[in-house]
């Protein structure tokens, strides 16, 4: 028994064939020994023999053993250990401690890129592939019904929904819902506009959510004439009703009507995606509003799959002859619930594209780290030579290099994961009620696998190339001749091209970021010629009333009511506030050749009066201009008059919108007045020419009102008047004119910050890469420098030559970058706000910064080379 165990040791340390040979020989000797000696003596002999052989063979298989032994042939697959050993990782830890700056640079570059990739992938994974966090979440499906002509999602027709509910056998439950908005009017706080959902009682019950108090909807809640009831989520209940259990059964004022609170649902429940207030909706029959087409979802029966559901529902969807006459049948696609509610295939394609781009960024970062690793690998070529002489194969050396970088990759993955988690936390804090309930940062097996993939992916790029190059050629020669024998090829063209590309990218991104930054500053500093802190603004929206598909207009009588309040002087309406971006349209001016392009804003009743702005010439709009049968008129701004009408008097001239060739020309509109510029194109004050059209009969406006006294009082008065006028009007974004345009500013600053961050990263990577290239070539040419200096060359001259070659790269990178920046600034036109054109000053500032950083990265190693003592260089290398 002991003998067998001892002999087993051999099969662990030795390749199979050799282990068999030695084991046979030892067994033969053992049996001979046992004939003449006792078993104990024989076993002791065997133990000594086995341990001796095992130690010798085990040692001969380490990278330190003599080369050319039997370690070279590949081991049988079943005994092959991990390609990276603990020893390799130990070396890696030692290297990090020895070279903290290089390691930190590599970890930082990889970590930031990984953070972006992990964030993008987690969004993709949790948006589109996540299961609904409800019982049987994986069995929820969403019925995507689209118009075959427009490809728009149109919802389910009531008769189709009825057939599905009555006849489907593949779906255990079918629910339907419609989105809505309304003002929630708590007793002692201001009304808040919220997004709500009308849901069928059976659909709500299928979620199996347990109310915190009260009950869920019941079918009787949705029949016509039933008492109106509402369900609230715990957070709304606590925030506006102090979590008072007595509120159960009490009326809650919502959109101007009273609803009885019948239940409170837990705060983590946000069905269908991110909602916190629910109203019951009838499945079909008389309780359904005419023309309403809800969205439908279902829970698959236990024995059904998605294909079966699709097949069955398609058959049930077949329209009757009457329905067919109304138009072509709609298309149905049954998809997993979470995918259906987050954009489906288009969103998946978009997000997969984003993740691919982020992976490419990671690959670029890893390629830069590869340059750093190559510098380090070449510096250690003597060490590799010694290891090779001791028997390490090239594969061993590459595996060791891989192991060292893998540790950096793993640290970067931890950094990236932490960063992505922080971004998610921030996102939750900013848009908590907008994110669907299934989007969260969880390291599930899929995300964990992706993070591991990123670590190995970046490590492979960063380590295998440099190690292949560093161990290329004869390593013995490197020992005999010094490190120049290794990797004499130096950095390839690919590395140099990559640096140029990165420089170009950083110039482009930073220039565009500067551009947007200037736009932002312009937007904040725009002068409207009035005190913006004394103008109250608010967004008013009147949602369609229940049972009516057409919205009714906001009653402008509320303006007179507002002005009757002591602290509100004047009130008016508009579609777009000053400083908000307006669309530019093509116009024809009567009596003038050609088309002019200018900004067009729609002004509601008393807009100019509310800002106390008088016409510079002519008049502003009167109430009669807003009537439907009024003569078409416009008011132009001063810039428009100057730019397009010259010195002539604008008042009385006519203009119209340019029509498509062949189309009926639009009606002429008479210019009745000229007003001063009011931020029609605030970001580019030089191009703010535009005109105003009167508008009326809308269910959406921006309110503008000059007020006196404290803002809070004016805001309270405004809310009270609007509420009294029509409590269904949702009031949002109550702020002064100075604070308005927040969305545009946020978008602008977020885009500018994002581009700046990417640009700085690209610049950092290119500078790192350039430093690596210079350090490498200096290391390679130390001997040459020594000879040159010995022959009388000036060290300064050598430094100049080295820096000059970098200048060429910098210049080509900058040239490419400027071209890209120009293209990118054109692309900025898709932003909903105008940005100024790219100025040469911006480009010069960015290029200058980049050149300075690049030259520094090149000069430092070159200076070191210039200082080398010729004798030392020749002796050492």
């Amino acid at each position, binding site marked *: 028994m002991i003998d067998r165990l001892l002999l087993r040791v051999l099969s662990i340390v030795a390749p199979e064939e*050799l282990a068999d*040979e030695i084991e046979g*020989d030892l067994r*033969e000797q053992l049996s001979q020994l046992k004939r003449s000696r006792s078993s104990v003596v024989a076993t002791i002999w065997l133990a000594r*023999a086995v341990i001796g052989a095992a130690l010798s*063979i085990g040692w001969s298989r380490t990278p330190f053993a003599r080369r050319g032994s039997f370690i070279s042939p590949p081991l049988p697959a079943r005994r092959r250990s991990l390609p990276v050993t603990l020893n390799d990782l130990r070396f890696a830890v030692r290297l990090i401690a020895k070279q903290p700056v290089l390691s930190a640079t590599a970890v930082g570059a990889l970590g930031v890129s990984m953070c972006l990739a992990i964030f993008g992938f987690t969004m993709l994974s949790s948006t589109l592939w996540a299961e609904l966090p409800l019982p049987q979440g994986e069995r929820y499906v969403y019925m995507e019904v689209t118009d075959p002509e427009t490809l728009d999602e149109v919802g389910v027709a009531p008769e189709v929904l009825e057939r599905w509910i009555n006849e489907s056998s593949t779906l255990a439950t079918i629910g339907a819902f419609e989105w809505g908005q309304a003002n929630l009017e708590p007793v002692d706080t201001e009304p808040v506009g919220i997004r709500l959902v009308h849901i069928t009682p059976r659909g709500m019950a299928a979620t199996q959510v347990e109310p915190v108090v009260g009950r869920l909807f019941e079918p009787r809640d949705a029949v016509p004439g039933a008492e109106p009831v509402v369900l609230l989520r715990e957070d709304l209940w606590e925030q506006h009703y102090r979590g008072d259990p007595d509120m159960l059964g009490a009326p809650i004022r919502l959109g101007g009507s009273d609803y009885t609170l019948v239940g409170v649902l837990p705060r983590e429940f946000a069905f269908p995606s991110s909602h916190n207030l629910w109203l019951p909706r009838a499945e079909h029959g008389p309780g359904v509003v005419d023309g309403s087409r809800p969205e439908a979802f279902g829970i698959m029966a236990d024995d059904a799959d998605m294909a079966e559901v699709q097949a069955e529902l398609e058959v049930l969807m077949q329209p009757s002859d009457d329905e067919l006459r109304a138009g072509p049948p709609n298309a149905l696609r049954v998809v997993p619930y979470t995918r259906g509610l987050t954009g489906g295939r288009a969103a998946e394609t978009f997000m997969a594209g984003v993740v691919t781009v982020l992976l490419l960024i990671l690959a670029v970062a890893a390629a830069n780290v590869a340059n750093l690793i190559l510098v380090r690998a070449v510096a250690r070529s003597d060490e590799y030579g010694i290891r090779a002489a001791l028997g390490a194969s090239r594969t061993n050396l590459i595996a060791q290099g891989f192991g060292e970088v893998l540790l950096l990759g793993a640290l970067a993955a931890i950094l990236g994961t932490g960063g992505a988690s922080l971004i998610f936390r921030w996102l939750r804090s900013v848009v908590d009620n907008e994110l669907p309930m299934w989007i969260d940062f969880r390291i599930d097996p899929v995300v964990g696998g992706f993070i591991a993939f990123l670590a190995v992916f970046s490590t492979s790029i960063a380590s295998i190339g440099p190690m292949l190059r560093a161990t290329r050629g004869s390593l013995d020669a490197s020992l005999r001749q010094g490190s120049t024998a290794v990797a004499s090829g130096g950095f390839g063209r690919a590395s140099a091209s990559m640096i140029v590309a990165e420089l170009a990218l950083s110039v482009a991104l930073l220039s565009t970021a500067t551009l947007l930054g200037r736009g932002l500053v312009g937007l904040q500093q725009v002068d409207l010629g009035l005190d913006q802190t004394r103008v109250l603004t608010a967004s008013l929206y009147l949602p369609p009333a229940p049972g009516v598909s057409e919205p009714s207009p906001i009653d402008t009588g509320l303006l007179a009511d507002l002005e009757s309040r002591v602290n509100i002087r004047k009130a008016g309406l508009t579609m777009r506030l000053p400083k908000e971006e307006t669309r530019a349209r093509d116009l024809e001016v009567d009596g003038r050749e050609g088309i002019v392009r200018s900004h067009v804003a729609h002004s509601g009743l008393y807009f100019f009066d509310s800002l106390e702005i008088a016409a510079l010439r002519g008049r502003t709009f009167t109430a009669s201009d807003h009537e439907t049968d009024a003569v078409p008129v416009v008011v132009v701004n001063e810039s428009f008059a100057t730019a397009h009408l010259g010195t002539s008097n604008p008042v009385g001239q006519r203009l119209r919108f340019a029509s498509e060739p062949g189309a009926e020309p639009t009606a002429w509109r008479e210019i009745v007045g000229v007003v001063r510029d009011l931020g029609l194109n605030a970001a580019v004050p030089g191009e703010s020419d535009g005109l105003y059209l009167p508008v009326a009969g809308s269910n959406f406006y921006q309110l503008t009102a000059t007020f006196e006294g404290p803002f809070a009082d004016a805001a309270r008065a405004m809310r009270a008047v609007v509420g009294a006028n029509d409590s269904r009007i949702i009031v949002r974004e109550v702020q002064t004119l100075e604070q308005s345009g927040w969305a545009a500013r946020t978008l602008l600053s977020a885009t500018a910050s994002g581009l700046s961050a990417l640009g700085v990263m690209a610049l950092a990577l290119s500078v790192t890469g350039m430093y690596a290239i210079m350090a490498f070539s200096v290391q390679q040419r130390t001997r040459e420098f020594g000879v040159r200096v010995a022959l009388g060359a000036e060290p300064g001259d050598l430094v100049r030559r080295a820096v000059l070659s970098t200048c060429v790269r910098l210049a080509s990178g900058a040239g490419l970058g400027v071209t890209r920046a120009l293209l990118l600034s054109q692309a900025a036109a898709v932003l909903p706000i105008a940005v100024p054109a790219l100025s040469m000053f911006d480009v010069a500032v960015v290029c200058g910064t980049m050149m300075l950083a690049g030259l520094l990265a090149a000069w430092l190693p070159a200076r070191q080379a210039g200082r080398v003592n010729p004798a030392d260089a020749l002796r050492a290398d």
Partner: protein
Amino acid sequence: MKTDDTAPTPTLGELELLVVLAILRCGDEAYGVTITEEIRRRTGRRLARAAVYVTLRRLHERGLVRSTTGTPLPERGGKARRYYSIEPEGLDRAQATQTAFTTMWDGISLAPADAPEEHR
């Protein structure tokens, strides 16, 4: 300029030479046990067992010896003996090593300076 044809045949290392000579001495019975025993018996050196196997494997990889597998034997736990014999290249190298040593030893006496004349 020297070409490969005129280059001297490479020689064997000390342990390699011992193993090659032991194989020649053992003839048809040359396998791990007998080779190790032969070296021990003739030179008195107790070589590490693994050193012999490693050397055999190295000579085999370089085409200097060839190996054949015998019949599995019960006293070997069913394992077969691996018999070794010398390839012509191995013989050439052994010959070259002997020539190199003989040439180098020619005319050298290691007798102490104060030894009688006849021993110098």
